[in-house]
């Protein structure tokens, strides 16, 4: 997969959604979140890994996530993030919004692929 500008812009908009979705499955630290996004998307979403952290910290500041320092499975301590009730609510709203958005985009692009004949 490439790193074209369109994909980068789409990823920026979807980062909050992706982070919340990954953390819905359990507490994780930053590196794990990045890996899970990459693996789940089969490499389609391979952002610069640094760009993940502003999203994590912003969501924490907004109350969608909580964070705590704790040792990782490899030993050194890591900052573990956990989704909150507010975060779950935000995720649900994101999902509904995204579904509506994707549906609308699909309808428009389908019209262009199959123009109505006369």
């Amino acid at each position, binding site marked *: 997969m490439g790193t074209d500008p369109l994909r980068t812009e789409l990823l920026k908009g979807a980062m909050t959604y992706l982070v919340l979705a990954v953390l819905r499955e359990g507490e994780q*630290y930053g590196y794990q979140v990045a890996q899970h996004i990459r693996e789940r998307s089969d490499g389609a979403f391979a952002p610069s*890994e*640094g*760009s993940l952290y502003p999203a994590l*910290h912003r969501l924490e500041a907004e109350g969608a996530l909580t964070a705590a320092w704790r040792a990782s499975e490899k030993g050194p301590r890591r900052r573990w993030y956990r989704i909150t009730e507010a975060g779950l609510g935000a995720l649900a709203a994101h999902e509904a919004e995204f579904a509506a958005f994707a549906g609308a985009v699909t309808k428009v692009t389908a019209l262009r692929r199959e123009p109505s004949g006369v």
Partner: protein
Amino acid sequence: MSDVPAAQERDAWLSRVATSLDLPEPMTAEVLEELAGHLDDAAGAYRDAGLDTVDADRRAIRSMGDPAVLGRDLGNARRRGRYLLAAVGGAVRATITFGVWAWLALWIGAAAVGLIGMLIASSLLHAVGSSTSSYFGGPVGNLATVVIATGWFAWLGRVLPARVAKSARRSVLGVRVAVGVVGMVAGSLVLWQSVSMPMDGVLAVGLPLGPVAFLVAALRAPADPSLRLLSRPLVFLGAVAAAVTATVVLALATVTPSELHGWEANTAGIGKTPEDVAVFAGHTWDVNSWSDTTTLTFPDDTMAAAAAAQFPVVRAEVWPTTIVDGLVHFGPAPVFAREVPLTTATQVDWTLPVYRTPMMVSVFIVAAARDGTRVVLDGRIAEGTTPVWRGTLADWWLSSR
């Protein structure tokens, strides 16, 4: 590939993130620890995939992207939603809470520095054989005031940025310029327009330096402006104070105070004495002078009429005065004069003019004849100086005298 060791590259990358973060020290350290952990995990994964250590470290760094952009975005995320409010609120809170401490410190510092200033002044004046009186007031005292005020502003400028940065969730580096400029402008406005006080040339020139000292100190403000009692500057100041105190005590013990009360005045230039003028010689009248008014009463109308016929007016005159070698000298002309007709009961009001530089004056009540003859009915010679000029800095510099 660069020859710079990967560890140095990693440190440099983290350092660039820290620079762009613009957060207080503890928050910066926490963010950097988290990012360093990510780099370790990523490098470990690349090593597991077959890369050597150096290449794995470098690839982990590259995968994180531009450190300046990351630092900026992370800093904004940590301050998100309340940055402006926190910045303003933090500045106000820090100024108020710290102001209480600063105010106390001002007075403690003023007492300490004032005492030292007086001791230094006394010591120097003893050294040249001058008097032993107090030097809290006048130019020396005002110089001490300037030193105190400037030092206080500098101290405030050194400490305040760290407190504002903490409240506003920014680094000291990020707020120093803003705090310094705002403090200098606000301090200057207050000093120039709002603070009305006894002023002289020393204060008029020295006080404006305070806000400038604030700016200079703020631009160099440290992240942790703690003041340790055993720090070198304080130990040095303590040693100086002890040495000066010892010197003055020694001077006071060895110098004999000079005699100040043997002066004489020659009032011939002001007018004649009553004994030299027939209408007054051998007669009695009462002259009562208070702070700004004098009454003159004659025992009977006959004498009053005789005096008024020869001396139709009475003048209150304020003359500049100097004492040189025990002899009182008066200036060439009075700086204030008011005259009223001489009657049985005469009252003349007078006032002392106010100058930016106070001068010693004498007040005379003079009876004046049409031919220019003058009789000094009462005199308060070298009684004091004109009132101290009082006003704001702006008034001082815009004043014509």
